[in-house]
């Protein structure tokens, strides 16, 4: 058990270091870049009075030497203070980004579930019927969608299902003017707006899961305990369900964590195409309008969430796979 504790401590420690490095990166990217570093923190709009700019410079100690600035930055960051948004004046950047996070979590959460389940099913059938028409067919089909830019697939979905068949809405997360509430009609509205974004996000990632699941299952099927199970007289279906699949699922847990970074990247594109009010849409809008406090807050928040999710997956792996503890 001492080994287990060492493994866990090490993983948590590494995650903390990664977050710390992200903080350093965030600091340097926005303050030390050539050009005028002040432009990333102080709004450059000429209509804004100088005294207001001076106030911000003083608040973040931007006239101080770099190492003092770093400490000010760190203490502000630990209080989740990235300054106020330039374009939505008066709104703290962190509050704004947090309010957008809900929609992104709904979007990425739903499609993560779908891509894992569908990918695993395809992987299992492909491995089981190796070399069959289903195997080659599903592989080329999923690679085709994997090769597709997420934003372009989203555009195609709009062409077919929104403007063409007029089945589903293509804009925002709720009908215009509605608020997020706990009512049945709101839930239905949310679902209708969610369908196309989720499809666009899910389909492209299925290949990643099905290919790994297929490979993993083929590997497991050559293990001796599978031969034993067969020798006991279990049916092929039982062997698959009780012995092969549970063991083949281990790499999937790690994959879900790694894939999270790609799901977030895809979510950014989906949100832009569908004007979905999530964190990706907010980040890209902030980038194009040079709203740097929001960009910093979003970068920080996404980094922390993704690193935390990776840590959870790592810990889950330790729990699920006894071999990791023995290392």
């Amino acid at each position, binding site marked *: 058990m001492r080994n287990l504790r060492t493994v866990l401590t090490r993983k948590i420690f*590494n995650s903390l*270091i*990664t977050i710390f*490095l*992200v903080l350093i*990166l965030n600091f340097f*990217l*926005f303050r030390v*870049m*050539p*050009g005028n570093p002040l432009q*990333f923190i102080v709004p450059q709009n000429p209509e804004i009075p100088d005294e207001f700019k001076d106030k911000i410079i003083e608040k973040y100690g931007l006239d101080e030497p770099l190492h003092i600035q770093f400490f000010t930055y760190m203490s502000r960051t630990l209080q989740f203070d990235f300054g106020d948004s330039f374009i939505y004046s008066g709104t703290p950047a962190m509050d704004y980004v947090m309010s957008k996070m809900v929609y992104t979590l709904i979007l990425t959460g739903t499609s993560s579930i779908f891509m894992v389940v569908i990918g695993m099913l395809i992987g299992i059938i492909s491995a089981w019927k*190796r*070399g069959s028409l289903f195997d080659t067919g599903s592989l080329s089909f999923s*690679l*085709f969608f*994997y*090769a*597709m*830019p*997420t*934003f*372009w697939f989203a*555009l*195609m979905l709009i*062409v077919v299902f929104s*403007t063409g068949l007029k089945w589903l809405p293509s804009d925002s997360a709720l009908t215009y003017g509605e608020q997020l509430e706990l009512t049945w009609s709101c839930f239905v509205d949310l679902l209708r707006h969610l369908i196309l974004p989720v499809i666009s996000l899910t389909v492209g990632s299925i*290949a*990643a899961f099905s*290919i*790994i699941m297929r*490979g993993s299952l*083929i*590997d497991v099927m*050559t293990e001796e305990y599978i031969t034993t199970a067969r020798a006991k007289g279990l049916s092929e279906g039982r062997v698959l369900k009780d012995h092969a699949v549970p063991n083949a699922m281990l790499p999937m847990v790690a*994959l879900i964590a*790694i*894939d999270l*970074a*790609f799901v*977030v*990247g895809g979510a*950014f*594109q989906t949100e*832009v195409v569908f004007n979905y009010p999530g964190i*990706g849409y907010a*980040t*890209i809008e902030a*980038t*194009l309008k*040079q709203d*740097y406090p929001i*960009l910093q807050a*979003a*970068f920080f928040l*996404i*980094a922390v969430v*993704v*690193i935390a999710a*990776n840590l959870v997956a790592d810990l889950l792996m330790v729990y699920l796979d006894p071999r990791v503890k023995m290392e």
Partner: protein
Amino acid sequence: MIIMKSTPVESKSHGPVEHGRFGMSEPTVEKLKLYKKKVTQTWRVYRKNWMGMLGLGILTFFLAMAVFAPQIVWMLSVIGGWDHAYDPFEQVSTTRLVTPPSPEHWLGTDIRGYDILTRVIYGSRVSLEIGLVATIVSMGLGTAVGLLSGFWAGWRDEVMMRITDVFLVLPWLVLMIVFAAVLPGGASVGKVVFVIGITGWSSTARIVRAQVFSLKERAFIERARAIGAGDYYIVRKHIFPNVFPLVFANSILTVALSILSESTLSYIGLGPMANQVVTWGNMLQDADDGKAILNGLYLWILVPGMCIVFLVLAFTFIGYAMDEIYNPKLRKR
């Protein structure tokens, strides 16, 4: 991406490339012969892989398109009876900028009055260019970090791996957006290449490092060390040649990802300007600005998009085939 990077640590099959006895090089002619034999062997296996061959076919098509773009446009102008071969930056439609497909402009004209078909053909050039150069940047960086990290081990490895983690864990698009936003200067091809390269090296570094760790334990490295070979000599002469096939197989998938990244960056408005550089990505951005969907100009979106899909698919297929060859674990049993 994650997809095919299947357990590189265990791919111990391709035997160590040994350079004669006592770690010395054979005469160059001998080496070339050996190399040629290896290439022929790989090709013999590759030829039987339908995916790899299909990918190679599609890639050849786009390469020809990129190299002979002016000639192709000229040929089309003769066939279509246009009054001259268009230039991708030529305003061919003056009275109305956006026009639907017509006999003179088979795919219509875009928001700047440019001929869309001409731009699709020329667009293959920048897509391939960005894909290849960005891949060289990220593979070079990743291989260097992986080699050093794996060979040094200890605290220097630890430091480099923590930095690699940052780039590995953070969503690629988020990193790219932040880099593209804070780097000075406007959007240019060079900047896009830099941004894609700097965000894409981390998984290569991991794979190379793992491979170096497994190589280090093998007898031929120990032998080289025993007769007094230095660290850098061993890395250069023994470790790198053994890691290279893996890096090469991976880099093909990286090209696919780089092309996807370019189109995404261009689409969200962080790529090169459409009046300076033609890319399929910024054509799609223009189509969005021109409300192509609302106006029913579907070809404007469909054709550049399909070009991206098929070019990326070509590299994915080739990469997948290479992975099957270099990772015999995946070969059908």
